């Protein structure tokens, strides 16, 4: 099927208004998350470019189909960045193409720094989108604080194109940090590692990354804590964290910019699982529950981020989804099947009353049920 690629918001709105067929909404197509949708593909990649950038106000307004790489280049030129550190899914999902900024927000994609500064949705200040009837809707704006009416902005983030097609986004951006340090401990078992991360995160030292790999570069487990800021401050806080964490094992401090950058990119993109066979799950749980959940699942390998609260699981192909969801449900949280047979369901099933709210919202935003129908579980 030929992919529709409107070149303007108006053209996109007309396509949606006139279509009688369901649409599969994509940005760059690099994040096939959700139940596969068999429908006419529609990409926002034709809506591209920076509309407004005010470094002094920390705001960027950008069209949804703009490549993430272009956004990052624009910000870097002014010493700023997307602080929530969006993951690049291409390595993990073996996809190709150009990730778009719209896709980042449609899937609410955040990286290790989410633990400190918030998720993608926390940086989204305003949206324009086309709803399921082809109407252009605006919500939010380009200011940091805004409680004027309902926050539809947050609702659009992480709605995977099921409520509307994002066309323009206003973002909060932040200055890049001058220096980075990683505090490392090798050889910890999962439960010990999460305890160490909790200690670091419960300190006043503003940890911006807290991860544990069961298999680091040389095969041994490695627990990593990141601090960022001015050089002296990073050195000071790394030293303080070293004192706190020495109870857990020998502590090393890494401050080489290239190596720290590579380490955290590896966590962000879950590089340990690239090219490996098996299903991949993403769990969001209470950090101290994470090692218990992982230990209950036979043959599971894990990468822990967000102090243990985010678990990437590699399990043998076609592992029992019910067992994984039950393990999570028992303590609270949710499990998403990122790679594997997605036809059987991807997201954590919702309680009936909450599912009813989801269905109601979909029916209002997309009454004909034509936007990514069924992607998040139940067709509208």
């Amino acid at each position, binding site marked *: 099927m030929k992919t529709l690629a409107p070149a303007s918001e108006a053209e996109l709105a007309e396509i949606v208004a006139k279509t009688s067929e369901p649409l599969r909404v994509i940005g760059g197509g690099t994040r096939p998350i959700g139940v596969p949708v068999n429908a006419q593909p529609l990409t926002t990649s034709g809506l591209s470019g920076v509309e407004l950038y*005010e*470094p*002094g*106000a920390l705001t960027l307004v950008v069209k949804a189909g703009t490549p993430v790489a272009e956004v990052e280049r624009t910000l870097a030129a002014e*010493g700023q960045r997307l602080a929530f550190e969006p993951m690049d899914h291409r390595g993990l999902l073996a996809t190709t193409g150009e990730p778009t900024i719209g896709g980042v927000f449609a899937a*609410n994609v*955040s990286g290790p720094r989410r633990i400190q500064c*918030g*998720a993608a949705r*926390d940086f989204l200040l305003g949206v324009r989108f086309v709803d399921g009837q082809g109407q*252009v*809707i*605006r*919500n939010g*704006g*380009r*200011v*940091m*604080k*805004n*409680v*004027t*009416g*309902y*926050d*539809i902005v*947050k*609702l659009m*983030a*992480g*709605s995977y194109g099921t*409520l509307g097609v994002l066309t323009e986004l206003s973002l909060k951006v*932040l*200055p890049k940090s*001058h220096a980075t340090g990683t505090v490392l401990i090798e050889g910890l078992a999962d439960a010990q590692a999460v*305890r160490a991360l909790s200690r670091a995160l*419960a300190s*006043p030292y503003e940890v911006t990354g807290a991860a544990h790999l069961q298999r680091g570069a040389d095969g041994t487990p490695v627990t990593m804590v990141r601090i960022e*800021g*001015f050089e*002296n*401050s990073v050195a*000071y806080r790394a030293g303080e964290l070293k004192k706190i964490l020495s109870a857990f094992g020998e502590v090393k401090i890494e401050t080489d910019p290239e190596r720290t950058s590579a380490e955290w990119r590896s966590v962000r993109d879950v590089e340990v699982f690239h090219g490996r066979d098996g299903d991949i799950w993403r769990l*969001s749980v*209470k950090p101290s529950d994470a090692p218990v959940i992982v230990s209950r699942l036979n043959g599971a390998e894990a990468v822990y981020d*967000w102090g243990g*609260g985010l678990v990437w699981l590699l399990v043998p192909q076609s592992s029992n989804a019910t067992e994984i969801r039950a393990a999570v449900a028992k303590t*609270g949280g*949710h499990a998403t099947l990122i790679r594997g047979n997605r036809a059987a369901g991807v*997201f*954590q099933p*919702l309680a009936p*009353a*909450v599912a009813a709210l*989801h269905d*109601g*919202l979909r*029916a*209002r*935003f997309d009454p004909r049920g034509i936007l990514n129908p069924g992607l998040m579980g139940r067709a509208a």
Partner: protein
Amino acid sequence: MEMPAPNPAILARKADLVEKLQSIMPRDAVIHEPAETRAYECDGLTAYKCPPLAVVLPASTQEVSDALRICHEMGVPVVPRGSGTSLAGGALPTEDSVILGVARLNDVLETDYDNRFIRVQTGRTNLSVTGAVEEDGFFYAPDPSSQLACAIAGNIAMNSGGAHCLKYGVTTNNLMGVTMVLMDGTVTEIGGAFLDAEGLDILGLLCGSEGQLGVVTEATLRILHKPEGARPVLMGFNSSEVAGQCVSDIIKAGVLPVAIEFMDRPCIRATEDFAGAGYPDCEALLIVEVEGSDAEIDEQLETIMEIARGHDPVELRQSESEEESKRIWLGRKSAFGAMGQINDYMCLDGTIPVSQLPYVLRRTEELSKDFGLDVANVFHAGDGNMHPLILFDANKPGDLETCEALGAEILKLCVEVGGCLTGEHGVGIEKRDLMLHQYDPADLEIQMAVKDVFDPKWLLNPAKVFPLASSDARRIAAE
């Protein structure tokens, strides 16, 4: 400010309603004598008052659910109320409505430092959430000026911010989970002690929904370890515009203070008399605060003070002690109260792009002259959240109306330069009729459609947020 006429059919069934409500909670939790309901006739927007039909003060999620179910079945509007500190009339009742107050829901349910959260009932005050964890070195970040009194339920309803949200975010950025009761009594759980709740972002939608979607009875909140230290610096300038430029330059330089607060001369004088914080007597004052160890604070303040020096300050002074820092913040946080002692005022809350600060301050001054009412400014400059205080005389006929007209012009100005009507106080009734200056009818229609999903009969706080003419059809259809 117009409110819908009370429904006589509901007024006629008051006795029946009270009896039903008394059957599901202790008698003293149902207030219905006119002398007693008057205590709930207004919130922080005291210009508008109306005693409700009755007040219920449930002490559990179950009682909230039962009370809402009864009102739902009888078609009675319900106005949820936290502590009643809203400045926008968010908790203003109508004569035919029941106030549902969460004041008796004030327990701490769970504190977990390893996983950095606290779970509380939502009638608990904002400051007492921090109070529950501060001995162990933790705090809850959002800090609205009313934090001594305001409830978490109201913070969620209005997505409250505060001076320190420049660094730590507002309520929506610190809320992890809720127990929410829908208008028909259905109890739902969303999110919990984990990040990024499941499914569509219902939590995000709830924050700032002004009590129109559901009543939140329990909340899981993110807590953080306190910084090692914090230190404010005072900067005085000869003009508001220069102070505005200084703010923009600080942000551009890549240092991120936890707070940048702004006050102009009228506010400086009023708060100085009140708190004795040692503010300089000048046109514009900035309080800039940074956090960290002593050495880290020195390093950041050095950069910030260098920028300030470039703007020819009349005063540039770091706090020398914790005692002095406290006084500096006491002054800022009591600014509204201090102004209230010398004048009636209306507090606005528009937010603008920081780059527009100098222009908006100049234009506000011109408008103030045109309307013949003084405007004092005290606001969160770092995120462009303005708080112009329009001074008027409530006893002088016509002054309130002039004040409201001037307020509307200032808010339209905020929208014009790319900002919004309200940054943290909410729309309530106060800015309801200005909504069409910010949004097109289709933009408002989709917001009202969201309410249709949560509250199809439009019984929860129905006459707020949307212009009455826009929501008329829905409210009438529900009757």
